[in-house]
């Protein structure tokens, strides 16, 4: 451990020189994004990191030990920031990996001609910095995955809007795959809006649903049945010719449900049921 302490001392003593070299490597690396990070900011981040690094290495060279926690926390913060700013994973990992060269130089100067010790120490440092590099990539990926799952959630809510077409007429344009989780959201939204608006007719448009298999058909039938229980009628529109043929071959029975080819047709039916008519204004000329 005495050796570690010496090393830490050395790093601290020569901090300015190391920092200068490290900065040079980071700046010359093709992966540095000058458009995303200022050099002064990078210098400050690097300086803080080097301080934490020399402190940790004085205690242990095992990055999983608790003394490395501040270093890892600082790295995690840098990675998360870079992930949010739009850096690529390799651009993010270059930060810590480019510290190798200055540290190797330092080791070489210290150990000099003793080949075996040199190899041992370089191996130790390589292991250490590789661990930290991998750690940055892990954190980077985690924060990206967080973004993806948040977007998925958002997409789920965005993609099931219930719109009011007319007094007492609602429309629900469905887009994408209709799995069980989405059906649940769709049904809840629709029933809620039926209550709120006192709608008598709901039109479910499936133009944007690429595949209508038996499960999708079953989900649609359940949604229609639930809407009926609430006292509103359902029309399914957007049945394309190829979907119609497929449903028939599958043997799904949609006879009890009013279906139309287009949303416009369905709207016309809805208006007729409500006793309303829409007509073009007579031309005045």
């Amino acid at each position: 451990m005495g050796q570690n302490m010496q090393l830490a001392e050395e790093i601290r003593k020569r901090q300015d020189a190391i920092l200068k070299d490290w900065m040079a490597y980071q700046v010359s690396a093709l992966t540095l994004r000058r458009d995303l990070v200022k050099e002064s900011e990078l210098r400050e981040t690097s300086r803080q990191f080097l301080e934490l690094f020399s402190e940790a290495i004085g205690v242990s060279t095992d990055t999983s030990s608790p003394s490395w926690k501040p270093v890892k926390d600082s790295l995690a913060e840098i990675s998360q920031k870079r992930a949010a700013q739009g850096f690529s994973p390799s651009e993010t990992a270059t930060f810590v990996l480019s510290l190798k060269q200055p540290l190797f130089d330092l080791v070489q100067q210290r150990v000099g001609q003793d080949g075996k010790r040199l190899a041992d120490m370089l191996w130790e440092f390589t292991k250490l910095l590789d661990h930290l590099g991998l750690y940055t990539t892990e954190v980077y990926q985690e924060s990206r995955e967080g973004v993806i799952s948040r977007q998925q959630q958002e997409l789920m809510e965005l993609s099931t809007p219930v719109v009011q077409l007319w007094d007492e007429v609602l429309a629900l344009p469905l887009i994408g795959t209709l799995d069980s989780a989405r059906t649940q959201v769709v049904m809840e939204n629709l029933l809620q809006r039926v209550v709120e608006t006192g709608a008598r007719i709901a039109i479910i448009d499936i133009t944007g649903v690429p595949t209508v298999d038996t499960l999708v058909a079953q989900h649609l039938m359940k949604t229609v049945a639930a809407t009926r229980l609430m006292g509103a009628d359902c029309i399914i529109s957007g049945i394309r010719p190829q979907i119609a043929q497929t449903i028939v071959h599958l043997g799904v029975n949609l006879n009890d449900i009013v279906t139309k080819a287009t949303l416009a047709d369905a709207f016309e039916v809805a208006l007729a049921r409500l006793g309303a008519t829409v007509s073009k204004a007579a031309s005045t000329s």
Partner: protein
Amino acid sequence: MAVLRDELIGLRSMDDMIKARQLVRDCAIFQGLSLVDQTKIVTAASELARNTLVHGGGGEMRLQALNDGPRRGVKVIFADRGPGIPNIELAMKDGYTTRGGLGLGLSGSKRLVNEFSIESQSGKGTTVSIVRWK
């Protein structure tokens, strides 16, 4: 008979199912199937992929583009190592279901394709193979 494309993908989650459907659609377009035929084989594949996932506990899908002289087609094979189907004749009947579905998945897919074969061994798994020709 020449096999032009041969792809194998795992079916372990709902995401895999979506990917499987897209692959089948791609292959059907590649083979020049009409829009109706594309929709039919994609829908059949969707049913069978779900069976592999739900009843077989996951498995794999093999997708092939076939050229048989002037005929072009798409072949899809679904294989799982699940519990198997004890009575295939019963399972193929319209409306027969063990999990509260419509009971039309197997029989319906058979009507959507030109060739359909099913093999199942109790405790060893099920393999379903379908072909749609142009």
